[in-house]
């Protein structure tokens, strides 16, 4: 039922978007804005250009960046929620660094960590970790204290409390943050892949742009959107499976 609704939503959105695009391309009537039909017809021929390598490289960067950010963000966030001392120590730093536009640090990160994948993943982590950390900390602080009562009266260990109460309680908010993070991660990725690499879907788009290959450029943009969309759907599925109790 829910899945069917989502598929319907997807198809509606897809059609509306493409119809708008189509009419817009007719009105503008420039090579810079080809009609969607040209792009879709050309998608097949892109396979030979080893587009999938670009996709895989980008996927590797995004997934590693998200993974590392999740591990760091969840552990530091929980540490700050449950330990007053750690919270006192880290809170000023988080508060101060949160609004700094960390994409501006890309040159610094590249100088420090080289041009390779490392620096791209690090810049992703630098940005994502704070979002996740703050969301996890606030979600954990918002768990009503009565929720812990029953399990405390059973003499549960800290690890048992973490596993049975804290993690399931913050999971819905964590997934929401993850959704936002994926959007952010892909935007940063596009930016980061403009430098010091010959692979990645971001590079592919920029490269097609400089070669004035507009069909290829749009195909790249579509592929990148598709990447984001697939990850969104995966999170939806994940939510259905592990947050069944919320339904």
């Amino acid at each position: 039922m829910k899945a069917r609704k989502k598929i319907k939503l997807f198809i509606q959105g897809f059609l509306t978007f493409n119809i708008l695009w189509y009419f817009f391309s007719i009105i503008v009537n420039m090579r810079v804005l080809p009609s969607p039909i040209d792009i879709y017809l050309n998608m097949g021929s892109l396979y030979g250009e080893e587009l999938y390598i670009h996709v895989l490289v980008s996927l590797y960067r995004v997934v590693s960046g998200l993974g590392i950010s999740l591990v760091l963000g969840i552990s530091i966030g929980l540490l700050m929620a449950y330990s007053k001392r750690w919270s006192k120590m880290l809170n000023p730093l988080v508060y101060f660094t949160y609004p700094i536009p960390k994409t501006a640090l890309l040159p610094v990160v590249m100088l420090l960590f080289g041009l390779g994948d490392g620096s791209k993943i690090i810049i992703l982590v630098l940005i994502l970790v704070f979002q996740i950390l703050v969301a996890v900390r606030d979600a954990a602080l918002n768990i009503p204290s009565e929720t812990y009562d029953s399990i405390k009266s059973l003499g549960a260990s800290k690890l048992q409390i973490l596993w049975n109460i804290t993690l399931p309680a913050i999971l819905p908010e964590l997934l929401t943050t993850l959704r936002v993070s994926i959007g952010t991660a892909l935007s940063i990725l596009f930016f980061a892949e403009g430098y010091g690499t010959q692979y990645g879907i971001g590079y592919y788009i920029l490269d097609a742009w400089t070669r004035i290959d507009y069909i290829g450029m749009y195909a790249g943009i579509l592929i990148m959107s598709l990447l984001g969309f697939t990850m969104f759907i995966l999170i939806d599925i994940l939510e259905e499976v592990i947050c069944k109790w919320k339904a």
Partner: protein
Amino acid sequence: MLEINNLSVSYNSENKPVDALGPISMQIESGDIYAIIGPSGCGKSTLLHVLSGIIKGYSRQVLLDGQELNPKKHDVGFIPQNFGLLPWKKVQENCLLSLKIKGKAIDSAANERIEYILNKLNIHSLIDRYPNKLSGGQKQRVAIARAFIMNPDLLLMDEPFSALDALTREEAQELFIDIWNQYKTTTVFVTHSIEEAIYMGKKIVIMSHCPGTIVEIIHNPLFNTENLRQNEEYLKLSTYIRSIIKKGWKI
């Protein structure tokens, strides 16, 4: 036996210590069921939180069978006002959580007990549901099942029936007494209903205003009587309790 020796609890509010409870002392024989009744804010819930180990640092004043009360060593069942079911666990997982936390194996004896209790409380058909798909009365029965499944040394209940409507409440109380008679678990429960105290408490403890102390402990001859409300004694006892409460609560 549960011994409470000179227990008083205070907490800090805006850097000033505030007395919340006590000093109180009482001795509860094994297999007894005590109803604690008192005005709101008198520290009834605080007392239960100390006994259940949720508030720490007072364990020395509380002995269970001669040993300092410790939720890690003793099996303490606790049914809070909101039933305390974890929304992300199915009924079955909620029921078995206590055994899991305590690291107890679910052997054939435990299984038999679980089956018996689930059937008795008529929640066998609900085991695959999540708590948000249950009615208040069903949640209550799951909470009772969870408490009895672990076979606790001490059972604590914080206004366990107050969230239910009148009819469901009576049914739940009957079910509880029925199953309690089976296991005779040492029980302390808090209530603000005189009727509930008389129906379910072998002894009734009346507490004073904050910081709560014991005004009187009444032996309740009407415990476990059927058709309680038609009994003449019932009216007398409840009037008596009411009069003490009025006196005690004015102090």
